[in-house]
């Protein structure tokens, strides 16, 4: 088990990719979702097109284009940067759709009431719509986190030395494929369990009676 330090290095890269992509994807997702729902025709169409193109092509292909394809256009990215960009752009499109779903599930009366008070559209979006939409999209968002954690392993194909890649190298040297990959699977599983638990607790802490899933709703007599 002297390979543990190597696995640990790989794990660091995996976590780095996971959290950074989630964060950039989150920001991109908000822009795309708001653009899709509230922006004027052309901007909205651009957002929709981006989302559809990203969701309609495999992540692997997107990574290949970034890492192997761009050099023909003169842009050379390191594996890690290419993976980060690819995962972020990809996650952004999916997060946009989750958020859009949440935004559109908010009763129209909320926006109407905000505008009736004299709020501008932007104020209404940031003070009334987003706080609610973000809360109700937490389950989808936590799903995205788990998804990203596991799909960072695809970055192996463009030469990023994340957890799975490390595993492959070690196993190739030691021929102990079952043990190594078994251990790696367990690591992913533990991380998944921990993340899910943490998000559940956060969701519970910030829950508001009447907003969100049935689990959160307080029952009145």
């Amino acid at each position, binding site marked *: 088990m002297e390979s543990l330090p190597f696995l640990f290095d790989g794990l660091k890269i995996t976590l780095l990719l996971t959290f950074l992509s989630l964060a950039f994807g989150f920001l991109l997702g908000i822009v795309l979702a708001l653009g899709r729902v509230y922006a004027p025709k052309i901007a909205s169409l651009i957002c929709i097109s981006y989302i559809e193109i990203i969701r309609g092509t495999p992540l692997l292909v997107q990574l290949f284009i970034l890492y192997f394809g761009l050099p023909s256009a003169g842009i050379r990215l390191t594996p890690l940067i290419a993976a980060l960009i690819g995962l972020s752009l990809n996650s952004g499109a999916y997060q946009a759709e989750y958020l859009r779903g949440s935004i559109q599930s908010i009763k129209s009366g909320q926006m109407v*009431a905000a505008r009736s*008070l004299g709020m501008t559209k932007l104020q209404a979006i940031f003070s009334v719509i987003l706080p609610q939409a973000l809360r109700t999209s937490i389950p989808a968002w936590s799903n995205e986190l788990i998804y990203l954690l596991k799909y960072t392993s695809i970055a192996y194909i463009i030469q990023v030395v994340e957890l799975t890649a490390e595993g492959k190298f070690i196993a190739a040297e030691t021929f102990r494929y079952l043990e190594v990959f078994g251990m790696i699977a367990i690591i992913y599983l533990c991380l998944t369990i921990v993340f899910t638990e943490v998000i559940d607790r956060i969701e519970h802490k910030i829950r*508001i009676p009447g907003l969100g899933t049935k689990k959160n709703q307080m029952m009145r007599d």
Partner: protein
Amino acid sequence: MHMLEVKNVHKRYGKTEVLKGVDFTMDKGETKVVIGPSGTGKSTLLRCINQLHPPEQGEVWLEGVKITDPKVDINKVRRKIGFVFQDFNLFTHLTALRNVSIGLEKVLKMDKGAAEKRAMDELKRVGLEPHANQYPAELSGGQQQRVGIARALAMDPTIILFDEPTSALDPELIGEVLEVMQSIAHEVTMLVVTHEMGFARNVADEIIFMEGGVIVESGPPKQMFYSPKHKRTGEFLGKIASLYGEE
């Protein structure tokens, strides 16, 4: 100069013309109640006044300013027009206090402390001080609507529009809302769309009867109930009064 002037307002949705030329005025402190069968454009009229659904034709003037003019900053105008909704439309993610104070903070740019103090005063006025830190889902319908009224009052509007404020409430809870409305009736200019005949008769300065997208008749309650000029007015009021009971 009247505080509110509605001139020849027409509104259509798709092919259907809902408002076919509505004219009336309101002065400061008046309480006017709009009654009529459903679908005659009463709610549409309110939404035309605060420009949520701008009219196709006609003008609305508030305190001498033509608010239907596209050059007018409608957000500034809406600060002066309070709106109380049939479905309350309280902000689900905010406490009662925050619901009332958020407009003060974001729209009137008051600082948080002052906004919350003012909000608390309004909640006291509608009798909901103990519930200030509860969320809308924890309040009864009548309580939610009273928060809605406090939210409108806090902005210190020139006029408050009430769109069937008690229609979505359990009968037991209607009273508490009507009481609040009655208590503010002469401090605030109010235009109320409602089926509550008791309120109309006891509190309104003038009752406006609408049908088919136009005003059929308007006048003080005594005239409308006991000596209406139009047959239809008498018919409608007679039916509704007996249905909803005298109050």
